């Protein structure tokens, strides 16, 4: 890949990740249905994980696994393994929080019969 195309990729990948985060933020802040708010939170998590993984790519690098053909890691450039490990943890934590949020949505639906956030605001803000 020649360099100008690669620099386009720079804007493309980071731009897409941040766009996904912004879409999730918009959904979580503006939408009225509880389910859409929870989906918005989940989309924020996905965009964030994408952004983190995009940080560790090196041009021409390969996966950091020392299988039988790559026993000295120094002759081939390897990508950074640390953000991948962090994202692994972050995905699982994001799943846990989404599960708890959805169970709250179920309980709110049980009590009020509607998912619209305007009708559920019993407590003062």
């Amino acid at each position, binding site marked *: 890949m020649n360099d100008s195309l690669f620099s386009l990729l720079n804007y493309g990948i980071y731009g897409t990740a941040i766009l996904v985060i912004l879409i999730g933020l918009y959904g979580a802040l503006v939408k009225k249905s509880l389910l859409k708010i929870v989906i918005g939170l989940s989309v924020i998590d996905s965009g964030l994980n994408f952004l983190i993984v995009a940080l560790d790519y090196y041009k021409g690098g390969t996966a950091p696994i020392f299988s039988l053909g790559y026993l000295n890691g120094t002759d081939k450039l390897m990508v950074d393994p640390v953000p991948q490990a962090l994202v692994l943890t972050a995905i699982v934590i994001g799943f*846990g*929080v989404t599960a708890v949020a959805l169970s709250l949505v179920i309980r709110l639906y049980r009590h009020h019969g509607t998912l619209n956030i305007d009708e*559920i605001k019993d407590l003062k803000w």
Partner: protein
Amino acid sequence: MVGTPVLFVAIPLLAAFLIPLLGMIWKELVRIVPGLVLTYLLILSINLLNYVLVHGPIVEVIAGWVPPIGINLVFSAFSGFLVTLIIFLGFIVWLYSYRFKRNVDFEPAKKYFLLLMMLITGSVGIVLTGDIFNMFVFIEITGISGYALTAFYTGRNSAEASFKYIFLGSLASAFLLLAIMIIYSQLGTLNMADISSKIHLMKPVYKITSLIFFITALGIEAEIFPLNGWAPDAYTEAPGPVGAAFAGIVVKASVYAIIRYIYTIFDMSGSFDLLIILGMITLIVAETAAIRQNKLKRMLAYSSIGQMGLVFVAFGFGTEEGVFAALFLMFNHAIIKSLLFLSGSYLVYNSKDKFIHEASGMGKYLPITSFLFALGAFAIVGLPPFAGFWSKLAVLTAAADSHMLLIIALVLIVSVVELVYYLRVVNRIYFFKKEDHVQATRPSYNGMFAMLILGVIILVIGFYPDAITGILHKASADLMDKSKYIQDVLSLNQ
């Protein structure tokens, strides 16, 4: 020494995984095992704190890899003091809620004690760790326990309060992750001491962005205005002891996180002014909101947020006296506010909405509880000779030394405001007649015992503050010394 710092996290986790199995054998074990764990941890932390005050901080490596390759835990005078406070409060809350309202049944009790133990463990983990991603994981552990405990009662309001909490908590963790990755992408390491020794190599725009994201994220947990929208609802709808746990444990750990970042890792003097401004705004808004409340727990929640604002102002002075005053405030606030939540919970035990006027006349029916509530109210306002007086005096002294006369005026005005709304409640308890449709429930023995312990401590500190000021001086000196922190952690890398 009876153990090492990692046991503060490992033993509760082991107990947490064992509780479902033990619950199948004998049902009382579900209540007893967390108590045993907390007792052991309390003994361990007092032991370690004594050791650390004499010999210097303990730095423990995990998995045998020295920092910055591996993760490390730091038990110094500052973090050890907070850990002991958190575990002591956790023990009191366990004792109080041994059989309380809904957790007399087995199934909810199993989950309640598990979540309570994990709330305490998560907060202890935040204070002990020396690695920023590890702190993120512990913040999430504390968060999920908090979301579930807020929604513990089956009414409709608690689910809504918990939903608000979860919404803001998710945004907080997203910003926190973003800030961690910005730091990692420049410095290549995740260890706090390592980052703080290399932070001057980062371009300023990255430093400022990262700091703003950090303060936004941790400010949501630590209830800085305007990020504290979740807090009054969560404190009101959670069970009484859980409200005490939030005010005394979770907020302290989040404040520790912010302070550790600003003092040790980032070390930018411009951020001190930011702390003072944010603290003052929080204090003013929260205290004015507290006057207008007519529900008891909501009033206590706003009062708690306001006092945290004062703690931030004290940390923002940047001097050692400021840190000493802030730590003293944190200690007093933890104990007194917990006593207020615990006793206030019995004063409005049988009412559905917990209005203040429903506590009228309880002075005759619940004499000890009312006395303890009044004691807590006087102590927190700062009347001598109770404990709160000494901490407010320390704040005023530190403010005078830093020539911030506006702060002195503000603290005095706010103290008067607090006096107004607390005295209003005490007045109702003692001098009004009890309302007819409200029943009084006497506290159980364990609840009474827990509240009495807190009351005794308030009296002791009030009459003899030197019992605690020695430890506080060592703790504040330890926080101010940034290079010693770096040296203690990185010198293991031989």
